[in-house]
Structures are given as structure tokens and as C-alpha cells.
């Protein structure tokens, strides 16, 4: 049998490791908050990098439209096909457009779009800034008297904050179109009638909080992607780690914000 002292020593080491993991977690959380704080400080200060913001909007928004559109379409089709049997058993097929619109606009559209953006945009930002850090490009900006945070981080975070809501609206529209097409497989209906019924079920409380939370989704995707890349440690491995952890952390961030938004909406 293992001596008690050895077991005690091993337990002590395990506790120490756990402690340092928690310490690391809180350190990173604090660092991220400070990184966010710097964003709100820098965003108001001139010079405004309008050109770079527009370029990032193009990369985040325009370059993601096909992927987001396709996902939205599949989302609408699948939702309609999956719910139809249940609705049919209650004789409530006429409610399908309303059910699809409320589910897509309130929840599925914003969350799925934000998760796609976390994967596509967040990872790109993490890898891009991580690579710039590793190859000393960020240092090169710093030493030439250019504020790299303002040029690289502020522009990217603004772009995601502005573009993700637009992408969500686009995804919602395409999802409703997908829903209409899926409904026509079994039940003949016109697009006009489908959209009239879909919109009739929507209220202000369904649309407004859903749109507001997408700004937060965009912000969290951008800030976490940039934070992971900007703080990548030296070495090529860290670029991969930055990209990977940006996706994981941003996705988690999206779900946490969604949870908070759901609670706040419930109170309204």
C-alpha cells in the first residue's frame, strides 16, 4: 500500500495544480475585462480608422453572406420539416409559419449566426493577430508610433459589432424563405400568405430584444477573437491555440449572453 505521506504529497500537488488553474482562469478573465475596457477608451479617440473599419466590415459581412445564407436556408427548411408532423397531429399546420418565424427570429437565427461568425470570423481574427504578434508585425507598428490596438482591435471589433446584426437579419429572412419552400413540399401556400401569417405572430418583444442581443454577440465574437490573437505568446503553436481558443471562448460567450438576454426578456 502506498505510504500515507506519498498520498498526502500527491494530493497537495493536485490541489496546487487546481489552484493555479483557477488562478489562471481569473487572471485571464481580468485581463479580458481590461482589454474590453481599453476598447471603450480607444474607440472615441481620433484618428478614426474609417477605411480599415469599412474593409473589416467587408470581410466580416460581405464575405460571410453565402455561408450565413446557406445556413439560414437549411435552418428554415429543417425546422419546418421537423415540426410539421407534430403540428399536423394537433391540426395546427396553419401555425407553422408563425412557429418558424418566432423560433427563428427570437432564438435560432441570432444564435446560429453568431456561432457561425465565432467559427469563421473569430478564428480568422485570432489567427491573423496571433500571426502578426509572432512575426513581430504588431511590435513593428508599436515602434513606428502607431497604436496597434486602435488600428487592429478597435476596427475589427466595430466591424463585427455592426455586421453580425445585419447578418442575423439576412439569415432570418433566408430561413423564413427556406421555411416557405419546405412547407410547400406537403402543403401548397403562396409566399405572400406564408409571410403574412409569419409576421402576424411576431410582436415587438420578439424582434427588439433579438436584434439588441446580436450587437452584443458581434461585440463578443470580435473582442474575444482579437484578445486571443493580440495576446498570443511567441511561437507558431500559439497561433493555432489562439484561433482555436477564440472559437471556443467566443461560442461560450455567445451562449452566456443569450442566457442573460433570455432572462432580461422574460422580465419585460
Amino acid at each position: 500500500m502506498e505510504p500515507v505521506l506519498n498520498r498526502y504529497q500527491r494530493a497537495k500537488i493536485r490541489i496546487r495544480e487546481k489552484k493555479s488553474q483557477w488562478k489562471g482562469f481569473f487572471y485571464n478573465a481580468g485581463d479580458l475585462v481590461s482589454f474590453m475596457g481599453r476598447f471603450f477608451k480607444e474607440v472615441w479617440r481620433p484618428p478614426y480608422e474609417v477605411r480599415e473599419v469599412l474593409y473589416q466590415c467587408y470581410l466580416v459581412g460581405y464575405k460571410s453572406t453565402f455561408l450565413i445564407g446557406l445556413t439560414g436556408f437549411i435552418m428554415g427548411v429543417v425546422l419546418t420539416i421537423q415540426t410539421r408532423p407534430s403540428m399536423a397531429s394537433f391540426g395546427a399546420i396553419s401555425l407553422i409559419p408563425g412557429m418558424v418565424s418566432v423560433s427563428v427570429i427570437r432564438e435560432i437565427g441570432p444564435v446560429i449566426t453568431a456561432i457561425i461568425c465565432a467559427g469563421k470570423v473569430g478564428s480568422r481574427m485570432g489567427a491573423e493577430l496571433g500571426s502578426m504578434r509572432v512575426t513581430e508585425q504588431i511590435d513593428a507598428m508599436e515602434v513606428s508610433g502607431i497604436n496597434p490596438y486602435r488600428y487592429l482591435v478597435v476596427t475589427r471589433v466595430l466591424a463585427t459589432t455592426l455586421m453580425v446584426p445585419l447578418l442575423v437579419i439576412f439569415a432570418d429572412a433566408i430561413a423564413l424563405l427556406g421555411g416557405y419552400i419546405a412547407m410547400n413540399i406537403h402543403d401548397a401556400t403562396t409566399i405572400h400568405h406564408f409571410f403574412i401569417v409569419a409576421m402576424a405572430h411576431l410582436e415587438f418583444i420578439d424582434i427588439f430584444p433579438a436584434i439588441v442581443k446580436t450587437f452584443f454577440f458581434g461585440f463578443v465574437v470580435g473582442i474575444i477573437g482579437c484578445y486571443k490573437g493580440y495576446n498570443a505568446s511567441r511561437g507558431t503553436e500559439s497561433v493555432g491555440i489562439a484561433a482555436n481558443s477564440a472559437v471556443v471562448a467566443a461560442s461560450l460567450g455567445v451562449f452566456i449572453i443569450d442566457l442573460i438576454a433570455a432572462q432580461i426578456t422574460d422580465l419585460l
Partner: protein
Amino acid sequence: MKETEKYQSEDHELPAPSTAAEQSTETEHPTESDQQTTGEHPAESADDQEFPLDGEIILEKSEEEALAERMERQEEADRQAEALREAELEIQEQVENSGDEPVIVIRGLHKSFGDHEVLRGVDLHVKKGENLVILGKSGTGKSVLIKCLVSLVTPDEGEIKVFGEDLLSLKYGELNAVRVRTGFLFQNAALYDSMTVRENLLFPLRQHKKDMSKEKKDALVMEMLDNVGLTEQVDQMPSKLSGGQNKRIGLARTLILRPELMLYDEPTTGLDTGTGKEISELIIKMQQKYNISSITITHDMTCAKMTASRIIMLKEGVVVAEGTYEELEKSEDEWISSFFH
């Protein structure tokens, strides 16, 4: 040869104090002189341990001697480092009194990363128009030292004055104003790989010369590329260029803001001899053309010989020798001469 280097070469020991780790290593592995003292081969010493009577006496004696020798060496090294420091401070005072403001003055610079002390009290100065070359083996704190000069690394202790401004007390905006007057050529050139060569050169101009017309900016870009002989590559991406071409573009990008001070971090590393020589020639050409003061970190002795007005040698975070190339080349010190021969 300056007083500091003379002092250094009088004794063949180096002033850098040996660390505790070194001491313990030396204890375990007796030096050649230790072996001569005992008059035995290491294998014989090991055999002696099986015969405690002779072996113990000989081993204990040699350990004691080695310890005493090391302590003596340590004291001597400390004395020499202190003498070098005093000499440097005296020179700095003389330069300041002469009314000729030095471009850089560093006093008592310390920097540690965790337990590892990288810089242990560095003092140096750079006069206007001078090119100071810093020599030293890898990991002696050369890059950390020049990164302190642009505040990429914040020192733990000491004073850094660049253009008479105390770098450590400046606000971010003021620091950036100093940085604009200082150019930094990174070891791998650090070109922005998402931009073409033209955009790389235009980028600092867009940021700092907002009033300059587009035509003038373009003309300046072409002038700088002409200086480095790469006008044809203006619309290429950095990934399409060779290492030497990247360095040249990096130099052109740094010089486009007409800095008064240049910091070169191993400008010829990773290049073949011919290209390395071309870069060194380019450094001299630019220095003469724009009257730039500079600090160059290098392992390349050809580059050091071509570009140096003065050389300082860094060992374990302290300046151990100073002089011109010719002076240091004649040094009888084993460590110093290992760089030159």
C-alpha cells in the same frame, strides 16, 4: 583602446560574475587548471574515490583551491564591472558637459524575466552620428536592451534617455513622438504580410503625414525603394520576396519617416555573406545620407567591422568591454578574441 577595455584586457578574466549554477557545475567538473594542480587525470581522480586515504586529501585540496580561485575571480569580476560602470558614467558626464547632447544615455539598466536576470546594470551612451555595435553571445540581453529603447520592454530599474527625454516617465502620446524619431529594423524585417510593398511603405506615412499629398507620398515611396534598389518590387507581396529583399524593404519602411536614430536587430542574420555585406553597405549609405545615429546588434563580424564607430561587448547582462573594432581585435582576452578570430 579606451580605459574600460584596457582595464579589461589587463587581466584575462571577465568581469561578469559567475552564477551559483556555474559554481556548482565547476565543482562537479574540475577545470583544466584544477587537474594540473592535482596532477591527475579525471578518470584517476574517480578511481581515487575508491581509496579514501589519498583520494580524499587530493580532492578536498583541489576543491578548496577551486573555491578560493572562483571567489577571487568573482571579486575581480565585480571590481572590473564596477570600474567599467564608473568609466562609462564619467564619459557620459564629459559628453553632457561638452554641450553635445547624446542621443541615447542609459544608466544602471536592470531587467529580469522571472528569476532570470537578463540585464544587470547596463550603462551606455550614443553620440550623434555614431554607430554603436553591441556584440555578445545569444541570450546575453542584447535584444532586450534595444527593445527597452523603444519601450517594447519595460526595464525594472535604471534610466533611459532618448533625445534627452526620460523614456520611462513619458505618456503614451509623448512616447510615440519619440518612437517616430526612432527607427527599428527587426530581425525578420516584420513586414505587414497582408499589404504590398507599396502599402507597407505608405502605411507609416498615412498614419503620421496626413497633410502630405498622395503624389508626394508616392514619390517618397519610390525614392526609398530606389535607395534600397527595389523599385521593381513595389507591387509585390512580402511573401514573394527573398530574405535579403525583405530586409531592404524593412529598412526602406523604417527610413521613410526619416528617423534620427536607428536600431538594427541582427540586420544580417539568416542572409548569405554577399547579401549580408550589401545590407551592411546599405546601413552605412543610409547613415551617411541621412546623418543617423544607430545601434546595431549583430553576431556578424563583417557587419560589425563595416558599420561600427564603437563596439561594446555584453556578457551575462553587463558591459564587459568597449572600444573600436581594431582595439578589441587586439585584445588578449580569450572571450573577446573568440569573437574576432
